[in-house]
């Protein structure tokens, strides 16, 4: 930013003007793109609170690093690039889920109530679950291209790869999702069958003493 001991009063004025212009530009970007950035991030993490955090982080990072945007006409792809990195960084760090403030407000802090988040609890459909199963980069490419309508060049820009590499990634993503969706649908049928059996068993139970506590394994939550 050029701030330093050599600053002069004129330089201060110039900085103030630039600062206002930058702030104005970033707010314009927000107005134009916050919806799609949020949607992209949301679909990557499937958590509305996290998505809001990441969307906010995206614009803050953009503001801080506005100097790195060489061509403002490419601002959209640049924003996606930032959002992409924000998301992948967080997924890598396994800080996938910042604590939902679901219970925060129940006992301290302004946040959605527990019940609200209970309502929001994610019980995904096969497609959403299949999306969650494929590698993060593939999912990102697929979402950007298919859902968020990015052009090939924008996609390459956002992913930080060549055009050819982006297309190849997209193809791999489609194939991964196709197989994951098939797996999901097959497993869903199996679950339904198992659940039918469970409900049948439950309906027929008569002896309360047959009901026992389960201390089932709770280790199935490891992040992938």
């Amino acid at each position, binding site marked *: 930013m050029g701030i330093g001991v050599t600053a002069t009063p004129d330089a201060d004025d110039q900085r103030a003007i630039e600062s206002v212009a930058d*702030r104005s530009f970033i707010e314009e970007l927000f107005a134009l793109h*916050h919806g799609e950035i949020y949607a992209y991030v949301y679909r990557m993490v499937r958590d509305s609170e996290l998505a809001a955090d990441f969307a906010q982080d995206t614009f803050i990072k953009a503001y801080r690093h506005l100097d790195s945007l060489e061509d403002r006409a490419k601002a959209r792809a640049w924003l996606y690039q930032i959002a992409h990195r924000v998301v992948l960084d967080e997924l890598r760090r396994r800080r996938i889920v910042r604590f939902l403030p679901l219970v925060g407000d129940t006992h301290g802090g302004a946040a959605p109530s527990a019940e609200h988040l209970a309502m929001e609890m994610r019980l995904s459909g096969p497609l959403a679950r299949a999306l969650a199963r494929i590698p993060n980069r593939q999912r990102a490419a697929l979402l950007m291209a298919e859902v968020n309508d990015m052009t090939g060049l924008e996609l390459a820009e956002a992913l930080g790869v060549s055009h050819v590499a982006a297309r190849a990634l997209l193809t791999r993503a489609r194939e991964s999702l196709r197989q994951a969706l098939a797996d999901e649908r097959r497993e869903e049928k199996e*679950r339904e069958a198992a659940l039918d059996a469970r409900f049948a068993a439950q309906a027929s139970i008569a002896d309360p003493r047959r009901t026992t506590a389960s201390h089932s394994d709770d280790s199935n939550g490891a992040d992938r």
Partner: protein
Amino acid sequence: MSRLSRAARQAEPLHERARLLASEAIDTELEPGDAAWLAEHLDGCPDCRTVADEYRALREELRSLAVPEPPRDLWARTSAALDEVDRSAQRKAGAIRQGFGGWAATRASFGAAVAVALVVVISGVSLLSQVPASHAPGSTRGVAVVPPAPLSAEAPVAVVDGTGYWITRDGQTYQIRAGSAKCSGPSDRCSVSSESGTTIGSITSDSPVFAALAPDARQAAVWNGDTVAILPLVSQTPATVAIDQMTPRPTTTDSAVATFAQPTPTVTATPTVTATPTVTATSTASAAITATPSSTGTAVPSESPTASAPASPGASASVSPSPSLSSPPAQPVTVPTAILNGYKVVGRAPEFSPDGQWVAFSAAPTNFTNGPDLFVWQVGQERAHAVTSAHVDFFSGWLGSEILVSELSARPAVSIPAATSSDVLTPAPSDSSSPSASASPSAEPPSGPTTTSYLFDPATGNAQRIDRAMLLPVSDPTRTFLVYWSGTIVLDAVSGQLKAGTGNLYLDSWADLKIEPALLDGVGALPTATPTAATTGGEPSASPIPVATTSTEAAPSPTPSSVDNGNQTPSPEPSAAPVLPELLRASAVDSVENWVVEWDATGQHVAVWVADPSSQSVGVVNLFAIGRGSGLVATDGPLFHARGLSSIQFDNGRLVYTTPAEGSDGKTYLVPLPPTPPTPSPSPSPSPSPTSSAAEAPSHTPTITPQPTAPPSEGPGS
């Protein structure tokens, strides 16, 4: 190698190329040569053709996903963060310039002020149409008013006998602090403040930390987005621990249990909590808990003297006269102990059992590969254990020594055998539009997603199914009434999730519920049945679709009500005797989607917080009086209402609520409950309530008498 396999191997690259081109053809126009080759290949390769078709179908499916809406406050919070960036840059610049004399500094700050002012104007122009009206664009919130560090949470974790417990935050350090109430105004308007007090627990976390206090305030359950831990609370300067680095297992709890010699009343040993003689109501309530289980028809042993502790952390002093514990309770942990990692708490906040020996909560894997299950942890255990495995279960609250579990499943409910369903004591409403009409479990079983509730005893493993279409029931401690949400479950189109649609809160009587032994989550029967809430009809379509009705919401509510703001005209009241379930009118809006329910220890008052439609954190706090004898609720209007945060609770006969900082004073208030109503008179007046303001006493309701000593009032946040 056979000729066939060699041929197949040679053909493999061709198939690969075909899939690559089929994929690229979706995004771009292929070169003529590639297009022709692909067409020819697909003609002769049914498998590749199928794949190509599936690629196109996938594209359509992906594009048909509805667009998730960003939260309304996204701009406000982003703007505030941008402001912080500006301030940071200004501070940095100012610090550098300080050595150059006053002129430069003055000039710089003037420039900064101009910049901020311009930002406000420009942002207002550029974003006014894009951001919610509730948040002023370019808000300078936080520019001029920066709360002093450590930042304080807005609402206390708990208020116990007037002692408030807060989590305060300073950077990534979270401290649990205890401070006394200060009665700054009239005696009925004490407010508690986090400004003073002592630190009794300290942890660091890179994500927000929340806490639930044990009844004796000697330990707390704390959690962030990935870990649930038990934190001992000490009066002397506690060591700071990093919750994210807690390993699953310290080794101390076992020894703590082993060295436990004689049971001692826990409360008296706690320096921050003083036993008071005012809690006899709690004690009697506790007695009622142990007395009633037999009415459920199950052999729940009365070994649970556990109920000697209060039902809510807000009334801890009730341990009192004769603990008469049949077995010594384990002592609190002595070092911070992670009891669950890799999971995120969802649903109602974790809560200690009334006896302080258990913590129950629902949690889902942090990556949401599954839905939530119910977890319990017992003092002395190393880990919390999942007691369900269907991934559709929510902790709904403690009821004595049992846990209310609420299941939201994509599967139809178990059909009730006809022979038993008729036994259900469903109120027989004379008014066909009564919500109870459709709430009868003997009605047609719903075909879509359903809600099922259970009572689960973690000590014995016994579970009972509660036969009522309801979500997240919250029972009063005496097991007489419960409040639950009922309405339409919808499939959220964004990601195929079940959630509440249109619905409302109802008061119901335990006596009207059929309770039968059940398997909670198929435990012991089908351990591998772990459905992830199968959807009912494939992928969701573009908009939320009501897929099931939990039934009480099926008919428009007939219950008259003066809404809390008093602006709505009451509808005619049914002339017949009131029936349960009754609508709890706690909001001006027709549908409740975001709420909190808390009962007081006596079961005579219930507080209901309902979020504003435009907010997830601010809403209306309502206090209702429940007529014990007749089962009537003053649904014509709350005794008290105020704008507040959802952190409602009771503390020794006082309602504790916190007003929002914006638009109010942001304080936590303790409002005395009206005295216990006398024996209810049996004859409700048939005349419609003329109440147009909640401030009027519900005189027509027989169970609630006017309380001249504590008139219904509006809080400062109203």
